[in-house]
């Protein structure tokens, strides 16, 4: 910035004391020094006029003076310093803001007299002498200034290729050095002006020295602050660099980069895995993608888990295990009491599989009340087949994606539960139990039942496509078993695909046998008791079943047995008893008061009350149908949380009774004078179905003929208007319920006769079973007097 040819004396200056009359341009916050260039923007009208006047001279010179107060827009002569610099206009361009100038300072001047103050300022100036003092002190100051200047530049621009020393040596004049350095520093105006006004080199250097020292302090603090911010910003960059270095070090040590290693392990596994071609292609593609991805990429983990899933899934058909039917039978018998029909059915399926290993595995549906052993039956099947057992609970599932997976584009996508189960099983042909299929929810996210259709359809599940996996997977070798408490809530298309096997509840004697064979040994083992330490005889179990539980299955019974076992275990542990035999009367002490009185039938039945039998999800129940006349009315009123089918059934019953009034010996006017009210307690429990038709007809007939129904007799069956008694479901549960309630006779539809063989021998011994094909047969069996007698009486 300083010309090489600078050692020449300042011969272009006019001699000290020379006088010029020149235009004056005031400057804000800027001091122009001799021999220093200054770009400036001039916008104020008076300044523009002054510049114009200067431009109109041959030599383009003017005087630059700094104003004392930078805030003033129209400074008057007294607002300006009196010492300024004569300058040459080197360049000028016009811009919308005013004039852009490049000024070059020539020499210091002092304003002697203001020649003009209107329009623009014009003054007579006298040139000030250039200080020329020399001496060791000047030299010392100069060196100090050079040192400080160097440091300032290092702080301001550490990379700048500026050598102050060189610059200064070229500018041999110490004053020139002071002026250049001062013009480079953002000095306060007042200090800059004092340097300009200094009459000796020493003074100028001293002032500059002072300013520089101050400036360095400020700059250093600013640099520190900026440095802090910068270091925070570059933290992540630093991390990146360190990681790169780490990788290099690992490569050097032959450890390899963990990402590469991971990919290499996967590649190795892929090469060894036996995959179908289309799967291998997909896996190859994803793996090569993985190898290119940085581990920090969000896709990295996702792609890795996907490749792992592909590698872990059992694509290869499993070796069909040799099925030993005898052994299977033994296993089923070991694990479950009775259930002959179900076991036979299972053994038939196994036989088919043995003869034709490629056949589609059957899809079974176990329906029955809770606690009858549906789940454990599935486990036994798996054991008999020597296949892994996987259980999925569908209860409450309402999102299709849970079954079929999410597409991989979603964050946190996972394969569906079916594929996950297959992966856990590690074999393509596990026994997969889909629990609680009747409790599938249905939400806004699609219908899981429909997704299940694809899983369970033997025609489709050979190419099951999970959304996550996005490759067809063969599920046809999977032995699906679904369980449900009721078939009513299973969608029809789903039900069609399954073979339904009913597991009815157990009779008391069966429960006692189950307890003896399975529950008590298991509970003893859990309580840490040896078989000889606790004996629970059958009478005790029987009392437990009758007085402490009311369930079709054995879950509660097992819990209670567990409680008994724990209490005895405590006594054994405390040393108060070594062996224990629990008598029926000990139960009071161990379990508290009896919870249920034995289901006693009502002691007396009034005319108009009949005993019906109902099937519920938890087994059979005895219910009473009550009918009463409604004097003055004509309507048929039905209450007791009755569903539509049962309501229709009641209407049919009424119609039949009214239309057979004569046959029943009822005077026709009895119908005309009064309506009838049918009620089925308990009122809070919803009831539905046609099977109470027989009981309702009997109740109405009893009411109108004023003949009580036999209190030891319960009945079930659907009726038709023609008076036929039609078969109904749940016969076993209903008969067991009647037996539990201590009833002696049951009236069943003729059409259900063949189901009688399901009923345990001991129950059949206690109960008299009457089969009816017409409603008249029912009335004959149920009413205390025969209809004929009633008719005769009336």
């Amino acid at each position, binding site marked *: 910035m300083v010309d090489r040819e600078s050692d020449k*004396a300042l011969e*272009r200056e006019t001699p000290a004391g020379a006088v010029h009359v020149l235009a004056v341009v005031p400057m804000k916050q*800027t001091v122009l020094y001799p021999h220093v*260039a200054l770009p400036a923007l001039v916008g104020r009208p008076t300044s523009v006029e002054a510049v*114009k006047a200067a431009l109109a001279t041959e*030599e*383009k010179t003017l005087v630059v003076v700094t104003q004392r107060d930078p805030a003033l827009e129209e400074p008057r002569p007294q607002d300006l310093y009196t010492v300024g610099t004569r300058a040459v206009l080197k360049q000028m*361009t016009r811009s919308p803001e005013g004039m852009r100038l490049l000024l070059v300072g020539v020499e210091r001047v002092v304003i002697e007299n203001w020649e003009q103050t209107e329009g623009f300022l014009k003054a007579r100036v006298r040139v000030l002498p250039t200080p020329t003092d020399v001496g060791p002190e000047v030299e010392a100051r100069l060196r100090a200034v050079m040192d400080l200047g160097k440091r300032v530049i290092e702080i301001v621009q550490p990379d700048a290729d500026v050598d102050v020393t060189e610059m200064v040596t070229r500018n041999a004049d110490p004053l020139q050095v002071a002026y250049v350095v001062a013009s*480079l520093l953002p000095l306060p105006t007042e200090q800059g002006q004092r340097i300009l006004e200094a009459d000796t080199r020493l003074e100028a250097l001293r002032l500059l020295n002072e300013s520089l020292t101050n400036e360095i302090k400020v700059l250093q603090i600013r640099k520190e602050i900026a440095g802090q911010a910068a270091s925070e910003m570059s933290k992540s960059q630093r991390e990146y660099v360190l990681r790169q270095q780490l990788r290099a070090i690992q490569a050097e040590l032959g450890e390899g980069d963990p990402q590469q290693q991971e990919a290499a392990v996967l590649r190795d596994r892929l090469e060894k895995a036996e995959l179908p071609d289309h799967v291998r292609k997909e896996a190859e593609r994803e793996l090569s993608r993985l190898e290119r991805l940085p581990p920090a990429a969000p896709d990295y983990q996702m792609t890795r888990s996907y490749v792992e899933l592909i590698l872990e899934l059992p694509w290869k058909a499993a070796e069909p295990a040799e099925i030993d039917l005898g052994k299977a039978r033994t296993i089923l018998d070991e694990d479950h009491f009775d259930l002959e029909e179900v076991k036979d059915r299972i053994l038939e399926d196994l036989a088919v599989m043995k003869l034709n290993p490629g056949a589609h595995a059957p899809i079974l549906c176990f329906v029955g009340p809770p606690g009858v052993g549906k789940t454990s039956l599935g486990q036994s099947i798996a054991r008999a087949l020597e296949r892994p057992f996987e259980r999925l609970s569908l209860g409450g599932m309402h999102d299709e994606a849970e079954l079929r997976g999410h597409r991989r584009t979603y964050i946190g996508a996972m394969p569906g539960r079916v594929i996950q189960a297959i992966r856990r099983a590690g074999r393509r042909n596990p026994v997969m139990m889909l629990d609680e299929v009747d409790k599938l929810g249905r939400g806004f996210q699609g219908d899981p039942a429909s997704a299940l259709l694809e899983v369970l359809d033997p025609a489709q599940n050979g190419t099951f496509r999970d959304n996550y996996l996005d490759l067809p997977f063969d599920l046809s070798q999977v032995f699906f078993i679904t369980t449900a408490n009721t078939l009513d809530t299973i969608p029809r298309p789903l039900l069609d695909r399954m073979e339904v096997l009913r597991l009815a509840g157990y009779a008391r004697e069966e429960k006692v046998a189950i307890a003896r064979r399975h529950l008590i040994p298991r509970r003893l083992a859990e309580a840490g008791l040896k078989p000889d330490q606790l004996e629970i005889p059958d009478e005790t179990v029987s009392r437990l079943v009758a007085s402490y539980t009311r369930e079709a299955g054995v879950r509660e019974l097992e819990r209670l047995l567990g409680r008994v076992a724990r209490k005895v275990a405590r006594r054994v542990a405390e040393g108060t008893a070594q062996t224990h035999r629990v008598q029926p009367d000990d139960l009071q002490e161990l379990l508290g008061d009896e919870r249920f009185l034995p289901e006693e039938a009502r002691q007396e039945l009034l005319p108009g009350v009949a005993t019906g039998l109902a099937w519920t999800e938890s087994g059979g129940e005895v219910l009473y149908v009550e009918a009463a006349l409604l004097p003055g009315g004509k309507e048929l009123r039905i209450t007791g949380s009755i569903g539509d089918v049962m309501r229709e059934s009641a209407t049919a019953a009424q119609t039949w009774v009214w239309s057979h009034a004569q046959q029943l010996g009822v005077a026709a006017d009895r119908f005309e004078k009064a309506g009838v009210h049918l009620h089925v307690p308990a009122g809070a429990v919803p009831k539905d179905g046609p099977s109470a038709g027989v009981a309702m007809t009997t109740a109405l007939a009893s009411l109108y003929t004023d003949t009580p129904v036999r209190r030891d007799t319960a009945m079930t069956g659907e009726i038709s208007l023609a008076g036929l008694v039609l078969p109904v479901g749940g016969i076993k549960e209903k008969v067991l319920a009647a037996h539990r309630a201590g009833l002696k006779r049951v009236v069943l539809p003729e059409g259900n006769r063949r189901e009688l063989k399901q009923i345990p021998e001991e129950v059949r011994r206690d109960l008299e079973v009457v089969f009816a094909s017409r409603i008249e047969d029912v009335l004959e069996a149920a009413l205390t007097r025969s209809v004929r007698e009633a008719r005769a009486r009336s």
Partner: protein
Amino acid sequence: MSRDPLLELLFSEPAPSSGAPWRPRADVYHTAHGWLVKLDLAGVRSADVTVTLSGNSLIVSGCRRDWLLERDWDHMQMEIAYNCFERRLDLPCEPGSCRVATEFRDGFLLVRVEPER
């Protein structure tokens, strides 16, 4: 009118020195006989140019005065530098043994420096 000292430090054109606000551009030729220096001095009166030889330096200095000064004209742009100039060029020839000839042609000042045999 505030300025960034750093910017100026890095980007401003070389500041003048020795009191001369501008430096004329120069071409230097090595000729069969010696040296030819061509200086861009358009608009400079030949009376305002001084050529001196000092040691082995050729110094051309002077002043360009604007002679196009009309009343009522408004100067809209100014890129031509006026006022004093100086250009010093180091020459590889012995001092005092050179012949120097100057010539003004079409705005260029031609300075011939030829060592005497």
